[in-house]
């Protein structure tokens, strides 16, 4: 009984969270193309990115397990469209952020977001 009383609220909270696949659904985006775009733009210059052997820069935060993260840059909700806009032109949606605008097309930025969400199984 004691166990149930402790676990039940916990189970209820877990049940509230939609499964990650639905939460981070990116229609028409490709994680494979995303990794190519990450290499081309040089995201690894500042970030450690799972699946990217080099570069593994340390001046920005590690992007390991990004799907599990609640917020982008500690301030924006971690939703697919927000992440896609952020990787492309961070200062436009979060003025004052260190992250600069990166040379990515809209489609590429969606691919990059799809890749970051797809890395959690690694």
């Amino acid at each position, binding site marked *: 009984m004691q166990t149930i009383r402790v676990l039940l609220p916990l189970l209820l909270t877990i049940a509230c969270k939609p499964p990650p696949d639905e939460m981070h659904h990116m229609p028409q985006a490709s994680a494979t193309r995303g990794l190519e775009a990450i290499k081309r*733009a*040089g995201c690894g210059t500042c970030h450690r990115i799972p699946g990217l052997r080099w*570069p593994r*820069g*340390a*001046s920005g935060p590690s992007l390991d397990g990004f799907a599990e993260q609640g917020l982008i840059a500690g301030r924006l909700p971690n939703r697919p469209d927000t992440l896609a806009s952020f990787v492309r032109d961070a200062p436009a949606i979060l003025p004052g952020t260190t992250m600069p605008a990166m040379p990515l097309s809209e489609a590429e930025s969606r691919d990059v977001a799809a890749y970051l969400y797809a890395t959690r199984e690694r």
Partner: protein
Amino acid sequence: MVDASVIPVFDPAGPYAGSIATLSWILVAMAVAVLAIVLAALGVALFGSPRLKARVGGTKVIWIGGIAFPVIVLTVLLVYGLSLTRNLTAPVPADAMRVRITGEMWWWRVAYLDRDGRTTMLDANELHIPAGRPVVLELESNDVIHSFWVPRLSGKLDMIPGRRNILPIQADAPGVFGGQCAEYCGGPHALMGFVVIAHEPAGFAAMMAKRRSARALPAGEGAALFRSTGCAACHRIGGTAANGTAGPDLTHVGSRRSLGAGILPNNLGTMMGWIGDSQSIKPGNRMPPYKTLSANQLRELAVYLEAQK
């Protein structure tokens, strides 16, 4: 990381690389043929009938197959190989463009020269050439032995301290060609890349003329930061007081395709990351990390540098 990050070595783009590629294919074909003969002999030794073994096992076979055959084949190959690649050692046309490239730990100093060998323009890590014409490179080193290698344009030649080695290169058509230091030179040797950009001759002349003409220097906070942070102790920017020579010349850094000696794409983000902590990207390189700079300062500095076309 640049378009030329994986460099094809069997895909020549000019006459100098072409003769080397032909020779390489001939060597591969001969190695395959010799391997086939050796394997056949091994097969006879293991599985052949006693009669067959007796026939091929005599002293005569050793004299012919073991001594005469290699001497003849290797002599022919030596003569053929030297004549095939003689364009690499032939005197270069006197009117060919000359560039001095100096190996540094772990980047390349580039100096465009006039006919009398005087420096006309400084640059680093990238070389612009006109397509369809031979260009003469004077290879030197300021510290240890490096080796200059742009596989699609020419051969591989060492850069030796105290010596000047001459290497002709040529690209038959405009394009971007990757290069790599090919002699272990310490720590980040593997991250010592090079980029050659071949232009249409008219476009090349226009680009060089534009570089030589007086330019509007970007001002603002970035320029002040470049001075106050001490960047100028190692880096030069033509037309400003920045006159350091220990590190790469940054006069045209904003027009480069790559950063960190041919290894990273060049954009505002990679420039910020490189200045902020290049040691996490290219460990051991001689540029210290500037972790004391604020995000805003990093950006201003990067904007200033990206404007140096």
